């Protein structure tokens, strides 16, 4: 084996070690969720649960966790549907319809992306109060529909659809609505999938806005609800780890199943940015 091959093997090994280190905290979270409360505090710790128990997950069901889970599913799914519908129309307009204000509108969308979301919490919260959105699911869904980044992303995707396809459809008497619905949407499925997944994950993982909007326990989403578990006097780490697993598992599964679209979405934003 020559020197450069040896280097490659060593670097590959380094990467494997880095990957294991990256995943280890997740292993620890999952394995601790199967430990009894006293074991979770024990020193020296058990590197794997010697007597695995489902008690933490059963205790989790005694809280409102099942309701929180359904709330999260409902809010994230509704947000995703609304964003895909409204964003795709806007992206079609900005990518393929030639009108004078289009460039200007697009540059406003892009420019707004540098404004930190948290800096707008106050005025957005004031509007939510004005519109009676406090403590409603609509209050979680409606503000998320304003998604300039998703419009930007989908526009980059739609730009790549050849203009000739649209022209020939127009020649055949297809209306603008028909072009959008019958041609643009089917041809930009990967882009639609990317923004749908991004939006779902973003909505599922949101915390701050949900904290401002939702006031009572039954209406909480999973992240909000699980965060309240630590308020208890004696912190039950096994239970909290179980809550953390339940909160993160659905999106991790979605991510692994749709990794291709994540990668496409991320790179389209970067390469043609």
């Amino acid at each position: 084996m020559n020197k450069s091959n040896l280097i490659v093997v060593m670097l590959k090994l380094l990467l494997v070690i880095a990957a294991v280190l990256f995943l280890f905290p997740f292993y620890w979270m999952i394995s601790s969720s199967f430990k009894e409360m006293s074991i979770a505090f024990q020193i020296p710790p058990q590197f794997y649960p010697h007597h695995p128990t489902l008690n933490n997950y059963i205790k989790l069901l005694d809280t409102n966790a099942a309701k929180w889970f359904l709330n999260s599913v409902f809010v994230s799914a509704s947000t995703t549907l609304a964003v895909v519908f409204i964003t795709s129309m806007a992206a079609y307009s900005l990518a393929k319809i030639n009108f004078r204000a289009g460039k200007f509108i697009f540059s406003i969308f892009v420019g707004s992306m540098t404004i930190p979301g948290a800096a707008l919490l106050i005025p957005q919260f004031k509007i939510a109060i004005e519109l009676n959105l406090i403590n409603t699911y609509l209050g979680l869904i409606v503000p998320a529909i304003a998604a300039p980044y998703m419009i930007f992303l989908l526009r980059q995707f739609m730009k790549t659809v050849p203009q000739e396809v649209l022209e020939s459809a127009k020649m055949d008497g297809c209306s603008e609505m028909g072009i959008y619905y019958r041609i643009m949407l089917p041809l930009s499925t990967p882009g639609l999938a990317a923004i749908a997944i991004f939006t779902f994950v973003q909505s599922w993982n949101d915390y701050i806005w949900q904290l401002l909007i939702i006031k009572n326990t039954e209406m909480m989403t999973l992240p909000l609800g699980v965060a309240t578990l630590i308020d208890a006097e004696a912190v039950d780490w096994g239970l909290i780890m179980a809550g953390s697993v339940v909160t993160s598992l659905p999106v991790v599964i979605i991510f692994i199943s749709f990794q291709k679209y994540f990668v496409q979405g991320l790179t389209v934003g970067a390469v043609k940015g």
Partner: protein
Amino acid sequence: MLKREFNLLYKERYGFLFVAPALLFFALFYLYPILDAIKVSFYKYTYYSSGWAGIGNYQSLLQDDVFLRSVKNTLLIVIMFVPATLIISFILSIFISLFRTRLQSVFKAVFYIPAVTSIVSITFMWQYLLNYDFGLLNFLLGLFDIDKVNFLSYDRAIVTTTVVVLTISLGGPIVILSAALGGIPVSYYEAAELDGASFWRKHIRITLPMMKPTILFVAVTSTIGAFQLFAIILLFTAGGPNYATTTILLLLYQEAFVNGDYGRANAMAVILSIIIVIIAWLQFKFLRTDIEY
């Protein structure tokens, strides 16, 4: 004249119609809030009183030690976070490129998983690992006869927080850099190998310059991202201990939703946005040496 304009607008109606719904939501939850934040920043706007304040909020902020501390903390995090992101994700994406395509996506997934995990889970996971009394990390240090470390002490909290944030932010840059790396023609490397270039030399001489536009993109987006860090810090340290990890956005949140002083909080938002725009602009100006391929 007016008629011609009207005809043109009529011809363009579909452009407007399709973008209108998005524009409506955008105006309501983005555009109006931006204008409102700027406006309110010039007002005294608390639970008890309101009225024109001129630059009063800005003046009081610039003389406020806690605010200046939060600016310093924010910049400190950016200064640690951005170079670390660039260097680690660049090196990891080169390492990843050594594997077969199928394994490459496995590794990319591994590094991206923390980015899709709820910050509530991430926070609890790390608080449990780093706990002073029964955390695994302190136990492991004990095996090497190293004294227990309080990772969230006044002096260490900001570094610990930045490291935790790094673990959840590397996935995006790695995916983007890997894509750019895959786009470099193999023939370049083959030519360099014929000339006897070593592994490192190849990457410093070919990969680095070829990827400069992508690295610039990652630099700018991760800088903006670092300034915008908020929820994870709020959950992880809540800005403590004793303001050691309080960033501008954390202070803004406290000022608005704990103290109820919207005027001052919005002034912070304006100052932060100005800092971000200036720094993003500077990065573009100085890092963008135009390379021709």
